[in-house]
């Protein structure tokens, strides 16, 4: 049942789906062909996953906000719980889709494989979990418009504020260094475990918030 609601979300944005698939395939090739910087290649999956996930989710949320289809679905045996679970599954399926597109792209441009390792993918997975783990419950609680403005605000603020903040931090001369009592593999595994835990905690919170909403 859950997968049908995920398919529904993809159908809502079917007009943009082809563009997103092409973007996920072409963007890494275009960016990688214009840079020799390995650190940038390492960040590529993270960057593309975040951009595409946010664009996809906001697009679907916009369609949800202008129709009352969610109420219709919740009046059927799907229930509110399934509706929310499907939103999280949608984010996950999109994540896997973008990753798959980058694996395909890496066959065309082998240098892209630099960023396709368990560490980089785990970091992206953790960031997506954190971002949507906060975003989805907020959206359910405050509505699409509030969340959209938060995103616009972040999109404008980050490029301007990140540099000065980093310079200020470096000027303080503070160095945090600690080592976890687990191996490198264990640390990577922990990232995945944290991501899954965050997702489930967020999903539980979203279900509870949505249960109280009048549709």
């Amino acid at each position, binding site marked *: 049942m859950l997968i*049908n609601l995920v398919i529904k979300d993809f159908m809502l944005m079917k007009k943009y789906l082809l563009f997103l698939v092409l973007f996920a395939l072409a963007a890494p090739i275009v960016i990688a062909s214009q840079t020799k910087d390995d650190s940038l290649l390492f960040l590529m999956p993270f960057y593309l996953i975040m951009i595409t996930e946010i664009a996809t989710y906001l697009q679907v949320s916009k369609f949800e906000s202008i129709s009352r289809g969610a109420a219709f679905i919740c009046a059927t045996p799907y229930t509110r719980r399934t509706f929310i679970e499907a939103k999280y599954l949608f984010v996950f399926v999109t994540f896997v889709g973008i990753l798959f597109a980058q694996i395909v792209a890496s066959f065309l441009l082998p240098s892209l494989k630099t960023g396709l390792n368990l560490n980089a993918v785990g970091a992206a997975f953790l960031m997506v979990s954190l971002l949507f783990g906060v975003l989805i419950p907020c959206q359910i609680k405050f509505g699409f418009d509030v969340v959209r403005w938060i995103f616009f605000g972040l999109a404008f603020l980050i490029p301007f504020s990140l540099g000065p903040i980093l310079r200020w931090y470096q000027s303080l001369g503070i160095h945090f260094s600690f080592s976890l009592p687990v191996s490198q593999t264990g640390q990577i595994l922990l990232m995945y475990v944290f991501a899954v835990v965050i997702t489930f905690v967020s999903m539980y919170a979203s279900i509870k918030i949505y249960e109280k909403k009048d549709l």
Partner: protein
Amino acid sequence: MTSILEVNNLTKTYDQFSLDRLSFSLQKGCITGFIGVNGAGKTTTIKSILGLINPEAGSIRFDGMEMNRQEKQIKNRIGFVLDEGYFYGMLTVKEMKNVIAPAYSSWDEQTFSNWIGRFGLNPNQKIASLSTGMRMKFAVALALSHHADLLIMDEPTSGLDPMMRSELMAILLDFMKEEGKSVFFSTHITSDLDKVADMLILIDGGKILLNEEKDTLLDNHARIKGDSRWINERTRPLFLTLRETPYGFEGLTHQKEALRQEMPDAVFERPTIEDIMLAYVGGAEIAH
């Protein structure tokens, strides 16, 4: 007769409106009309039954099952038509069906195809481009394609032309031919119920004012016309509504026999459901 749905002490409070400990039950094998003026609480009640609104108190039972505990099983047996369609306009008829159908364990694709064919709906047409009437027909097709036992409809006839309203009434009567089926049908266009309703529930200001068999209700009330001189301190309180003109009076009563004795020459007519609804909703103001 056994009840298919029981609503007990349903309470929901908004800033300027509340459902006040609403209790009623729907009988199996009956079409129950849920009437009231706009803003009376019909949609809030129906949305509460469908789980779209969270009431502060009260319980809903369907065929012995508690809605809070067996929501999926209950919703599997309920078909619904909501007033504004509530569809994703950007999807086609077929795409929307593909989303909804897997939710129901007893979805019948052949039945759905039959309804789509009968209604002349194009499966590849975008829902946003359907007319109000066609959207309602699509909602009916979805509601009737999983062998629901109870069909809940919220203002399905508002915005429809008389032809389409009549067609919908015929569909309801067809649906009721199968044993054990029930319909709960909210409307402020009471003429729709004249032909099809078995029971009537009148709601106003979030309270149930009447809950009776339609024929009993119509039999117990009368529209009376006569000479204004017959209106006096003894007869005036026997009316629910009373309109006096220099040429005579016209009023509605639920004390037919008493008035027949008081004014034997008056004309007694069978009222319409609308007469009764308006009498109870705004009767006090009209009568005095």
